[in-house]
């Protein structure tokens, strides 16, 4: 019964990988012209990525997205401000913690930090660093969604919080430890990926639809950018704290 959409999804995940594989292949064949070591494991890994993406997106479309979206609309339409803001925060936090790209890159960052003798070279220290990074990012995304929702309700122009975040980042950078700046600047883009963006966009558009005088086409946007900037501020603060 679900065979058909599943295979469609499988093909869609394959299409996501095609541009990367094509560019790598062209460079390997035409420019580098060297054998790839471990071709077997790369092929197995690529198949795993395709299968994983398919199951992931298929699962999201069956569970999280329909409920999350209808709830975002329901909360936006009625319900108290308190519950709306609490929901916005929890949604941002939960989505960021579950984000697979963030899981993978946080692990990578912990390995780099431990090789660079920034943290102890034990598995426990690495796991602690990676989790600390992810929780920091998730807290900041929760807060960013909360502020973004307030912005839509109050009708502030979208560039106010963005300008504020830019100034914060520019002011904090000279004081943050140099080792954290790269990952701090990257963390926003990493975290606003497959789960966060659709749920947050649904919340923003739902909210802008239900408030009088707001245009879903224009006021509904601007949540994602704030979610992409706030982690930079928080991760730099995390770097100063540890």
């Amino acid at each position, binding site marked *: 019964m679900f065979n058909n959409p599943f295979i469609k999804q499988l093909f869609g995940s394959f299409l*996501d*990988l*095609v*541009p*990367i594989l094509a*560019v*790598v292949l062209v460079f390997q064949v035409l420019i*580098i012209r060297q054998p790839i070591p471990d071709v077997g*494991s*790369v092929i197995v*890994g*690529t198949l*795993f*990525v395709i*299968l*994983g993406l398919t199951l*992931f*997106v*298929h*699962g999201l479309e*069956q*569970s*999280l997205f329909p*409920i999350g979206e209808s*709830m975002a609309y329901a909360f936006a339409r009625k319900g108290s401000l308190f*519950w709306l803001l609490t929901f916005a925060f*929890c949604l941002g936090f*939960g989505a960021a*913690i*579950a984000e*697979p*790209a963030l899981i*993978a*890159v946080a692990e*990578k960052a912990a390995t*780099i930090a431990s090789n660079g003798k920034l943290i102890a070279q034990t598995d426990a220290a690495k796991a602690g660093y990676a989790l600390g990074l992810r929780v920091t990012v*998730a807290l900041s995304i929760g807060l960013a969604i909360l502020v973004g929702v307030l912005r839509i309700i109050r009708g502030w122009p979208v560039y106010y919080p*963005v*300008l504020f975040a830019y100034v914060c*980042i*520019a002011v904090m*950078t000279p004081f943050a430890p140099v080792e954290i*700046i*790269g990952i701090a*600047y*990257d963390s926003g*883009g*990493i975290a*606003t*990926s497959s789960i966060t*963006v659709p749920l947050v*966009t649904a919340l923003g558009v739902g909210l802008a639809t239900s408030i009088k005088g707001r245009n879903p*086409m*224009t006021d*509904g*946007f*601007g949540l994602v*950018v704030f*979610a*992409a900037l706030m982690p930079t501020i928080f991760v730099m603060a995390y770097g100063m704290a540890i």
Partner: protein
Amino acid sequence: MIGWSIHFAMKLLETCRDILPIAATIIGFQLLVIRKPLPHPRKTIIGFFYVLLGIVFFLEGLDLALFPLGSLMASQLTTPEFLGVNPLDQAVFWQSYSWVYIFAASIGFATALAEPSLLAVALKAEQISGGTIRAWGLRISVAIGVGFGLALGTFRIVTGSELYLYIIGGYIIVMIQTRFAPKLIIGLAYDSGGVTTSMVTVPLVTALGLGLASAVPGRNPLLDGFGLIAFASLFPTIAVLGYAQIAQWLSKSSLSSKP
């Protein structure tokens, strides 16, 4: 086989912990605040199980394929034999690494152009602007933006210059563009930065940056390795704002030139 099953079970447990907050948020708010039962409990639980399995396979595949591929490309494009320089010569000029910049630009351009969520954004932008902005024009300008951003990002890693100079410079450009861009498009332009960093692009680009920082003499992955994603999320905003501006000028001048 037994070792692999234990490894798999451990990963599954870890992933359970990772999706617990979002599952608790959705189900908790549905039952306690909205006070309605879940519409399709069976389908939801099966869906969550798919998500779990999907994340485990995806992360496993990243470690086997995308991470090694990114660092392999970085190391193969920077070997002294490939660059045609003397391996003992420590002072390598940034011009020697032109294939690295071309590779980064191609990856950025190709992934952005094929990104499905960018298509959705582009169609919405066409709708908001009443047709002044063309979906295809927007997609191509974003793809050029990401490609240029990644090439500039790899240039920064090769030269070891400060990341914040580029990014804060970019922020200033965005703020100046915001001043002049059509007001309706600003929110969408800001959000387009998050759209281009998909689940498959992020790991490959990260591995490319880290591999480059460990392969280029005098660079340190800890200090120089990250930052490419920041470029990939800033430049689409500049590209969309720039394209909207140009499209507005073009439509104005074509209107005023008509009798």
